[in-house]
């Protein structure tokens, strides 16, 4: 690591003292803290002294040692004076300086003009900042002032400068004052009792009750601390509303966990697919707008559940179950003898109304008001690899590119041309609900289906494009066309441009028909029919892409994708008017079973967690009350001309509630084995066990007695024994001992072992401790086993809870989640890309921790965590399947590290274009631990009146912005970090040109380092700012682990951790070990 990267601007008054190396330290003398400016915390001199004076054990070097690295004698909290050794040497004279006579005049001369009563640049005001530094806030303020002076950023270049002597005086005074303040304020660094966050509450209840409901979903959102964490004791409030929710959620959870009465009735339906298989059997068919129903001839419905039904009732249920493929192109699925073939799904367009259609194709059971409303359920899919079905001549498909095959002539009608059959609306027959007005067919009752039949004779077999000439209608009138032909129909809702709306007539391409030669007819109409004047049927040449696709030989197509693997992604949803509100559940499963040897794939879910129709909606509308359960072929493809590896689905089964045992284990976990002859004694046993698990600690007899007495007092109110006990359990789940992390009792000096186990579990699992941790705490062995426990915990699946919760808040993934991308500009940014971008970041952080990689991996890495969908979006080939795995990437692919990940880049864009300032602020906050001040009120926007503004690149616009003196001071320190990302688009793709301009990502960082693009920035961050990054990461993890923001007085502890992390080679787990074994974590 290079030192003094900015030596040219180092303040002359504070030269680094010689580095003292303690003999015990077997590390090269070159190690030193290198914090580039601007700095937070104590001046580098002080920090260096503290750190180096310590005899730091090197146990952090991997592999993990068995003992804690904080010898008791080195614990700064334990020193009699409470003072870290070495700190005192920093400024022997500082304490003697008088503020009023010596410092204040200097500040008046050099600082107050911009940071005084009249102006508060960067929101900083010094003239009324408490010079005794009695509060943490005042000390923080002075600390940043010191950082600015030390780094030479203040006073600004164009202002009057301190003389060397003055600067030394001010720095000495600040240094001494801060040091004393840090000492005084150490006691203020306290953890306040924390309420469980929403996620912690959910996990705690799930673990306790064994019920997989997302319990916390209904709770009010938790507020964020200044550092951005919701698990902060200070900001976690409890309102009466919380109590209302807690009680009702507990009641719901307990009722699901315990079994009173008989085993509930299980609903089970089985639907089998096959061409013609359902002929003569009873099943439903659901129509409606844009529906794509499967003919009941092609599937069977079996009602298999517990219910004893008469023949008539059974048939009634069968009629309520239909199969639909709404949202699917007719050319992407087919009922064949063996079942249903589903080609790879093409994601839906992310624009209403089509965004609710589901990917094409998707296959669903549509169950109307015949499903349970709660409980675990299973969906079983019998499936195998499929094949591309052979060409079907009778076909009707939508166009890939809606380009008319016929032009409009000057007279406003279709141009006559060879190979095109043109028929006027007046020639149509069998009209229903339409009228003829001046040669144009128009609907009478607009919302009702209209109909007009057109007959025509085709000279040859082939594919024909159908174009419609019609009067325009604004989108609000829902202009639509249903084209029915060849045994299919195709619904379209027209979206006409403003220009088209001005015209008398417009042309809309409707689709492509595959037909044999001879006499045919087609129907036009449907609800909200737009009407028409003429229709044109044009034969497409064999080289037309759609004809090529449709006529490709199926064997060849099947052969071309045989190395690919189809997969199943399961969904549950509610039918809405123009699509479905749905959610996928369970992980996708690859289907390797060969054709002819199908296997069964099971998907488990919980109905309450999924978007099922509102129970008891009271609605009796013909198209309401549909629970949708289905799947798509999750080997997603980007274009309709790709088949992908076909999937063959033979059957889908739905079973709910899913009860593998009765009574369920959740019940027997509460009502444990025991002799119920002495009911109070048995109840005491039940309650004690539950109390200890719920309160995460041992409970004494008196406490159990109180709850037992409560049970005695209410048991008569309930019909069953279990219901009476349930009432007690609900009360237990409303106790603060369950809802809060109670760590200290009054006068307790040190954290108990049990409290440490809890703290550790909520840190690394975001959940309560498991039996092992509790056992170690109970037997007093936990403190000796912290390091192996950390490894065990990070290897457990529950570490994902930590990774997700911490990454989401640290990296502001909420911004990615909330971002609405302009899909006109970024058409292939689908919800699946969005989902996978978030997953990329979680998997990346998880891998860094799990594999104990260097923390600088987070800045740049030679691998990216990708699945096929995301890799394809980023333009990386050769990644197959939906699961995430490390993929080697080269520097010029620009995909290494968090900075190159979609979740960051998208979340810090404006939805259409990158947003360099958002990206820069994020880097400064999260990576450098140096959040820029908030913009002043009434900050002017980028000024579009600047000459030529429209034609500037954003970088040039920012430069223009910086020319504005009121903005320059701050933005000069911010913008360059964002400019480096300019070649990464709003959706995180490499984009060397934008709006016809070559993108310039070259910039000079505030310290004078020139970088070009993200690679340059990554190199700079790793080599020049490594310790700043390490410190920022430690601080954020520390704040998260402790449930409180980093305090001014934590500086020396953080320094020590940084030192240890450095010695351990900046490994990810060394940060965790360092925090967990720190006195703050284990004792205070």
């Amino acid at each position, binding site marked *: 690591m290079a030192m003094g990267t900015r030596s040219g601007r180092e303040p002359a008054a504070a030269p680094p003292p010689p580095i003292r190396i303690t003999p015990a330290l077997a590390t090269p003398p070159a190690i030193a803290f290198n914090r580039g400016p601007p700095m937070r915390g104590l001046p580098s001199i002080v920090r260096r002294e503290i750190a180096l004076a310590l005899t730091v054990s090197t146990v952090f070097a991997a592999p993990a040692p068995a003992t804690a690295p904080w010898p008791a004698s080195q614990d700064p909290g334990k020193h009699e004076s409470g003072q870290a050794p070495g700190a005192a040497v920093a400024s022997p004279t500082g304490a003697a300086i008088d503020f009023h006579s010596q410092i204040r005049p200097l500040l008046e001369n050099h600082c107050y003009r911009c940071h005084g009563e009249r102006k508060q640049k960067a929101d900083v005001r010094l003239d009324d900042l408490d010079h005794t530094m009695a509060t943490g806030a005042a000390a923080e303020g002075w600390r940043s002032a010191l950082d600015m002076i030390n780094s030479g950023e203040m006073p600004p270049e164009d202002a009057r400068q301190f003389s060397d002597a003055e600067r030394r005086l001010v720095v000495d005074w600040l240094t001494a004052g801060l040091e004393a303040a840090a000492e005084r304020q150490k006691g203020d660094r306290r953890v306040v*009792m924390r309420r469980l966050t929403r996620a912690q509450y959910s996990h705690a209840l799930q673990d306790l009750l064994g019920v997989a409901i997302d319990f916390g*979903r209904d709770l009010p959102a938790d507020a964020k601390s200044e550092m951005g964490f919701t698990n902060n004791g200070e900001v976690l409030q409890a309102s009466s*509303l919380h109590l209302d929710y807690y009680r009702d959620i507990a009641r719901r959870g307990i009722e699901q966990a315990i079994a009173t009465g008989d085993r509930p009735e299980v609903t089970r339906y089985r639907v089998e697919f096959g061409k013609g298989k359902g002929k003569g059997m009873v099943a439903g068919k659901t129509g409606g707008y844009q529906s794509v129903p499967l003919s009941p001839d092609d599937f069977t419905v079996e009602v298999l559940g517990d219910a004893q039904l008469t023949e008539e009732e059974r048939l009634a249920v069968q009629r309520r179950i239909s199969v639909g493929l709404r949202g699917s192109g007719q050319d992407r699925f087919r009922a064949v003898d063996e079942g249903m073939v589903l080609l790879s799904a093409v994601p839906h367009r*992310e624009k209403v109304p089509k965004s609710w259609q589901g990917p094409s194709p998707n296959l669903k059971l549509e169950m109307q008001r015949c499903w349970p409303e709660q409980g675990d359920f299973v969906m079983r899919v019998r499936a195998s690899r499929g094949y591309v079905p052979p060409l079907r001549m009778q076909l009707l498909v939508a166009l890939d590119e809606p380009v008319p095959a016929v032009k409009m002539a000057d007279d406003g009608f279709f141009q006559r041309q060879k190979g095109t059959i043109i028929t006027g609306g007046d020639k149509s027959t069998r009209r229903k609900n339409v009228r003829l007005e001046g040669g144009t067919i128009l609907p009478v009752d607009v919302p009702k289906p209209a109909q007009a039949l057109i007959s025509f004779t085709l000279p040859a077999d082939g594919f024909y494009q159908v174009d419609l000439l019609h009067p325009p209608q604004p989108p609000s009138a829902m202009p639509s066309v249903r084209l029915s032909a060849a045994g299919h129909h195709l619904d379209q809702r027209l979206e006409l441009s403003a220009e088209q709306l001005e015209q008398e007539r417009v042309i809309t391409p409707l689709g492509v028909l595959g037909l044999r030669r001879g006499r045919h007819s087609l129907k036009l109409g449907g609800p909200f029919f737009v009407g028409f004047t003429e229709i044109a049927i044009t034969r497409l040449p064999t080289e037309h892409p759609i004809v090529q696709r449709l006529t490709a030989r199926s064997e060849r197509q099947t052969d071309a994708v045989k190395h690919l693997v189809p997969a199943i992604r399961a969904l549950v949803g509610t039918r809405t008017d123009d699509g479905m509100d749905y959610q996928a559940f369970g992980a996708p499963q690859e289907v390797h079973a060969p054709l002819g040897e199908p296997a069964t794939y099971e998907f488990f879910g919980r109905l309450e967690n999924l978007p099922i129709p509102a129970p008891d909606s*009271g609605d009796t509308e013909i198209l309401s009350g549909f629970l949708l359960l289905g799947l798509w072929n999750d080997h997603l493809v980007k274009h309709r001309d790709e088949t992908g590896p076909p999937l063959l689905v033979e059957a889908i089964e739905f079973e709910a509630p899913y009860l593998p045992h009765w009574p369920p284990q959740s019940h027997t976990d509460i009502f444990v084995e025991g002799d119920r002859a002495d009911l109070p004694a048995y109840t005491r046993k039940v309650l004690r066990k539950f109390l200890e698990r719920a309160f995460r600690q041992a409970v004494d007899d008196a406490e159990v007695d109180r709850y037992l007495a409560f049970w005695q007092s209410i048991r008569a109110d309930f019909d069953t024994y279990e219901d009476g006990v349930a009432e007690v359990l609900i009360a237990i789940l409303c106790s603060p001992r369950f809802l809060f992390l109670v760590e200290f009792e009054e006068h307790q000096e040190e954290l108990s072992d049990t409290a440490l186990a809890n703290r550790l579990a909520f840190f690394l699992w975001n959940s309560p401790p498991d039996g092992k941790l509790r056992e170690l705490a109970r037997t007093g062995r936990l403190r000796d086993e912290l390091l192996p426990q950390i490894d065990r915990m990070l290897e457990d699946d529950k570490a994902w809870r930590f990774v997700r919760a911490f990454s989401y808040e640290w990296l502001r993934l909420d911004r990615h989640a909330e971002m609405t991308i302009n899909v006109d500009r970024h058409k292939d940014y689908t919800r699946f890309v969005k989902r996978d971008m978030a997953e990329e970041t979680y998997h990346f952080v998880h891998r860094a921790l799990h594999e104990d990689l260097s923390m600088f991996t987070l800045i740049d890495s030679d691998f990216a965590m990708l699945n096929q969908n995301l890799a394809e979006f980023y333009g990386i080939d050769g990644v197959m399947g939906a699961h995430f795995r490390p993929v080697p990437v080269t520097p010029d692919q620009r995909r290494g590290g968090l900075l190159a990940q979609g979740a960051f880049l998208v979340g810090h864009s404006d939805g259409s274009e990158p947003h360099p300032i958002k990206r820069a602020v994020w880097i400064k906050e999260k990576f450098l631990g140096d959040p820029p001040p908030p913009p002043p009120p009434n900050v002017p926007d980028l000024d579009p009146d600047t000459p030529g503004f429209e034609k500037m690149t954003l970088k040039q616009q920012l430069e223009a912005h910086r020319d504005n003196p009121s903005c320059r001071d701050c933005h000069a320190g911010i913008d360059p970090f964002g400019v480096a990302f300019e070649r990464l688009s709003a959706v995180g793709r490499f984009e060397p040109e934008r709006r016809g301009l070559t993108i310039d990502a070259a910039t000079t960082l505030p310290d004078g380092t020139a970088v070009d693009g993200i690679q340059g920035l990554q190199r700079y961050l790793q080599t020049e700012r490594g310790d700043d990054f390490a410190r920022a990461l430690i601080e954020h993890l520390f704040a998260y682990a402790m449930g409180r923001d980093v305090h001014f007085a934590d500086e020396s502890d953080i320094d020590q951790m940084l030192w240890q992390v450095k010695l351990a080679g900046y490994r990810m787990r060394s940060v965790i070990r360092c925090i967990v074994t720190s006195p703050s974590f284990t004792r205070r």
Partner: protein
Amino acid sequence: MTSFNPLDRRTFLRGAGVSVALPWLEAMTPRPERETGTPRREPMRRMCFVYFPNGAAMPKEGDEKWGHWRWFPHAAGRDYEFTKVLECLAPFREKLSLLGGLSHPLSRQLLGHLAGDTWLTAGDMRGDVYKNRVSVDQVAARHLAKHTRYPSLVLSTDGGVGYKSRVSTLSFDHSARPIPSEHRQRLIFERYFAPGGGASTAERRAQLQRGRKIVDLVLEDSKRLQGKLGKHDADKLGEYLASLDSVEQQIRRNESWLDKPRKPFDKSHLDLDVAANVDPKGYLRAMFDLMVLGFQTDLTRVMTYMTGREDGMGFADKFPERALGIKRGHHTISHDQHEGHWDQWGRYDQWHAQQFAYFLERLNTVEDEHGKLLDTTMVLYGSCCSTTHNARNYPLALAGGNKLGLKHGAYHKYDESTPFCNVFVGMLNAVGVKTESFADSTGTLPEVFSA
């Protein structure tokens, strides 16, 4: 809305959302101030929302029907002239503001029918999932619940919640779940106005007592714990204790309602057996009568009423035929382009407005101890699209609340930089909810709501 049927607990709790799940908490509260018999100086603050589906007739300027059948008047300001549609509101002109040009920004690109799900919520339906929000009435209800027996009354002509994208309720709870609406007037009366309403008093009392026992136990447990804590933690737990206290008080208040007789009222004019599909006018007016009665007896201070569902669903689609003999459904009328369609639509809008005028007239006649109900009750009347499914420029009339600081008498026209939610912020402030924002609001409407 709360229901006290003798449901088993499972059914009871599984119901659609908080309001159902928490009847014994948010439900009833006495008004100690009124026990003394002296009127309070502060008026009761109420709000109410009345919705009609499918938008309103808005012929373009230049169309020959523009003069008669445009829902909005022709010129903004205080001196506007009603068209035939709203002229029935003339008697309330000084207690009424017409609000033009407003809409929910997130819904503008949507079909008006879908926007109907968001009228009181400003939810986001544009993306891949159905993201609705809490509705404004429920925000107010939570604030006002402590004063009344019920936090709110959620009414519709069709009942239930409908389904996503075509709801039959205007109200969504704090978890954004639809709150089932009630539509059978006799049942509504028996449930909310009859003594003992719905479930037997004994059962309800037992339910409340069980709830109180739990709270007492938790309270005791918390105090015991608090005694063991250091100062900071004890303070933190103090928050929780305070919340337990307030929950306990709420339960006590709820219990005390059980013994309290309802305010006497005259029900001789009520006709609770009108079928919506036979006599729409009678049905709407009976609902409005019930609403007036609810306010008059201070049953609740928040109500929503969805007079019909979007997209031709439910009873209200037949209203034009039953009431005016127009042989088309309301939804069809809203799409029509044949000659004379503006006349049909305009006549229906006019008829509907006349029923609303009846409601205003009743509110302006019936008094409580603070005077005319209308002066302390804000009523927002409107829809979620202007003409055919265009989810912009909602037809909106805001009436009442003169004593709550509202300034009326003008037709205000806004451009699209003013989101509809600004109205909600003003209304929330007027009932005492101290908020500066609701959903995507950017402020309030200073022309109507005093600062």
